[in-house]
């Protein structure tokens, strides 16, 4: 892994001036990219930089408006995913393209050449998965599998087509650190076999660790080619963002041990609501004024169910399972819990966090129709539009929400900007307890730093903050202690001074299941 260009073989794929236009947006604007045989090439960029558009064109899902693609030196037109596969390009999708109601083997069969006998696929898939150390049950229904297992199916499916170029779109965002390590081993092995890999990620440490070369995109344009080994994470981030990313400042919480417990979850159990959801088992947790507690875990281990239970989207059987500021709220719905001074930011922005077709100010009104002294409602229940508009403007300015109109519909905003608005909407209430699920998922680095800093400041001003996130870097940046959720059970929180990636990663993988009553937490601290 020297990044020495001379070591790399001849060009396998050569992309010249590739352009894709959606309406007035130039999603990809004259992109050049060269991938050699036997290299792992990183594609870096912020959300919306055009990475996904570029790989979709390489895989034949989108048709470029201009530019050419050379494969082994010959110009080609990739008109469909089948054409891409025939050339020898395989893809592992970011949002998995799997069929939940079909078995693993059936899922694999669907992407193989149509003359492959279906009866032999299960055996082949099993053999291949074992040889790469990615065990897989071909007869399992995909709907029953974890995210990590689903990704294995995607990878096996891709490898069975014996591609020369494998495109991986943010493959580690859903994996535990240990699972990611296993993936890296697989990728190293594939490189050793002479295959090329186009690796899309925004995790710069990974890129530095594995990739031979990197191409950085910003606003649809290539802003640079570089050797990740020669760069630092900070310099790579600068290239991606185009400006310095502010470091998060987190002063240690003072006197948190003595502060009042504002959020208390006491032996919470929850039966699964759907066949694919996770039951919660005996979850206990307390968050004190002034501290940020992080909850780590691989997606689909009960974090969503846990959030629903605390926010009141799902109510409990006993009133004292959840208490906010000393009040037992287990039987209350969302509005009741918000009235006690809590604020919630769900993971899903459109549909949960905001009503997509309604404007930002209407969404603001919806979230405060019952709380905050009904500040936006007049005596007869009429809407005070002036006060509403002022508050919406205040929030948008505070969070630097970029929008195309004064008061656009929620669905017209990009995911990151909408998240800024939703977080701002809740922060604006100065909540005593703030619970956030995936605060910066899909948000670009600059805005993410802004959101994280705001959460820390809220805590230091005397609120209790609970953050559920899949992004370990984020949790390490902002938390005073991190607990791990695995298979519906919550570990005891580990104080940040004692927490390491390895420790948390083992817990995420379920190495140390079981839960310890929250009283013991202080002994560790």
């Amino acid at each position, binding site marked *: 892994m020297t990044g020495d260009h001379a070591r790399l073989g001849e060009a396998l794929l050569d992309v010249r001036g590739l352009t894709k236009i959606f309406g007035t947006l130039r999603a990809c604007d004259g992109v050049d990219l060269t991938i050699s045989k036997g290299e792992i090439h990183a594609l870096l960029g912020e959300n919306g930089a055009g990475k996904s558009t570029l790989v979709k064109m390489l895989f034949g*899902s*989108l048709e470029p408006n201009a530019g050419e693609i050379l494969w082994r030196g010959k110009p080609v037109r990739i008109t469909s995913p089948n054409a891409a596969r025939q050339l020898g390009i395989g893809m592992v999708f970011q949002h998995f*393209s799997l069929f*939940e109601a079909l078995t693993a083997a059936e899922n694999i*069969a*669907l992407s193989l050449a149509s003359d492959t006998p279906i009866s032999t696929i299960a055996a082949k898939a099993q053999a291949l998965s074992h040889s790469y150390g990615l065990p897989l049950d071909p007869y399992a229904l995909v709907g029953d599998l974890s995210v990590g297992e689903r990704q294995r199916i995607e990878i096996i499916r891709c490898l069975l087509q014996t591609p020369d170029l494998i495109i991986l779109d943010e493959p580690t965002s859903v994996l535990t650190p240990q699972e990611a390590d296993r993936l890296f081993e697989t990728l190293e092995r594939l490189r050793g076999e002479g295959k090329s890999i186009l690796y899309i990620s925004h995790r710069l440490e990974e890129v530095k660790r594995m990739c031979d070369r990197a191409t950085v995109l910003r606003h649809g344009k290539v802003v640079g080619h570089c050797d990740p080994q020669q760069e630092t994470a900070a310099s790579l981030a600068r290239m991606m963002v185009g400006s310095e990313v502010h470091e998060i400042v987190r002063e240690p919480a003072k006197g948190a041990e003595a502060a009042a417990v504002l959020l208390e979850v006491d032996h919470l159990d929850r039966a699964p609501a759907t066949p694919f959801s996770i039951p919660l088992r005996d979850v206990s947790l307390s968050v004190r004024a002034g501290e940020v507690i992080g909850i780590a875990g691989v997606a689909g281990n009960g974090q969503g169910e846990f959030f629903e239970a605390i926010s009141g989207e799902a109510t409990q059987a006993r009133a004292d399972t959840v208490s906010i500021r000393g009040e037992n709220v287990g039987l209350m719905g969302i509005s009741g819990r918000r009235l006690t001074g809590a604020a919630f930011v769900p993971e899903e922005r459109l549909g949960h966090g905001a009503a997509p077709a309604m404007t930002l100010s209407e969404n603001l009104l919806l979230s405060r129709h019952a709380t905050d002294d009904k500040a936006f409602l007049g005596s007869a229940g009429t809407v005070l539009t002036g006060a509403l508009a002022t508050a919406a403007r205040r929030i948008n300015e505070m969070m630097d929400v970029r929008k195309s109109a004064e008061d656009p519909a929620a669905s017209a905003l990009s995911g990151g900007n909408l998240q800024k608005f939703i977080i701002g909407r809740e922060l604006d209430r100065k909540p005593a307890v703030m619970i956030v699920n995936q605060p910066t998922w899909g948000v670009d680095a600059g805005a993410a730093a802004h959101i994280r800093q705001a959460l820390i400041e809220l805590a230091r001003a005397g609120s209790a903050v609970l953050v559920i996130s899949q992004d370990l870097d984020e949790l390490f940046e902002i938390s005073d202690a991190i607990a791990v959720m695995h298979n519906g059970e919550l570990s005891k929180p580990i104080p940040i001074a004692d927490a390491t990636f390895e420790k948390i990663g083992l817990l995420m993988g379920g190495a140390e299941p079981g839960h310890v009553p929250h009283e013991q937490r202080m002994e560790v601290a």
Partner: protein
Amino acid sequence: MGITEAILLTIATAATPLLLAAIGELVVERSGVLNLGVEGMMLMGAVAGFGMALTTGQPWLGILAGALAGTLFSLLFGFLALTLVTNQVATGLALTLLGIGLSGMIGEAFVGQPGVKLGALDIPVLSDLPLVGRLLFGQDPMFYISLLLTGGVMWFLFRTRAGLTLRSVGDSHSSAHALGIKVVAIRYLAVMFGGACAGLAGAQLSLVYTTQWIENMTAGRGWIALALVVFASWRPWRVLAGAYLFGAITIAQLHIQATNLSDLASWPAPLYWLAELVKSIPSQFLSALPYLATVVVLVLISRNRRLTMMNTPASLGRPFVPDR
């Protein structure tokens, strides 16, 4: 021919159009398309089949014409719902309304005319077997075709690659598209198959079940077929069972209404009481039974969310626009 045998034969004849239409709609829905135009397509099949048989004197040509008319009519739905991506529910309803009107207009000249009957097969020797002989070996060809189609669909959906592809499109059209599967083309084929089956079902009504053309002669069978697909939770063999159950209900209802209780005086007491009880139920209630049964089944299967998710095509009725 005993009375039991006769009743069983009529049940089979009543169940066959339900089975034909429902098995076609099952394939359509498995591909993720909801075509509520079954009733309209059946009527088009019925009038085309009747007209063709009447003018040529060939019942088989009538059957073919019925299937063809159903297919053509379903293409109209396909063009609107798949190519122009209109709302599937509204388009399906419009197709039914159009089918009722159009078939009535075309069939105006046929009203009151004696039709041509597609006769029953009579396989020698076998059809003379006691009890099951006529039932299994002396039926009309549409009976055998409906059973063959059911078996064929079962084999196709769960044993062939093409069937797997079709189910995958119904489960997630975006995933299928990402893999390079031609979602719209597959749905067109499924919709056409559904149209052909509905057309066959209609032709069976006007060439086998009755041999005449009456306006709106399907009398809600298309809706029963639609309910049947849900009732069967998208499983072919359950469609078969359901079609015969609903067919039996229809025939039972007719027989009960035609029978005088005094004729049954010789029956054993419990049977007599049962007949008395059934006869006291209003006939409208019996006509509504298939729908009621479907509602009950829907409630029952929705209690088991896992089963529902496994069998219900997840993309059912959702519009699909490929991005290029």
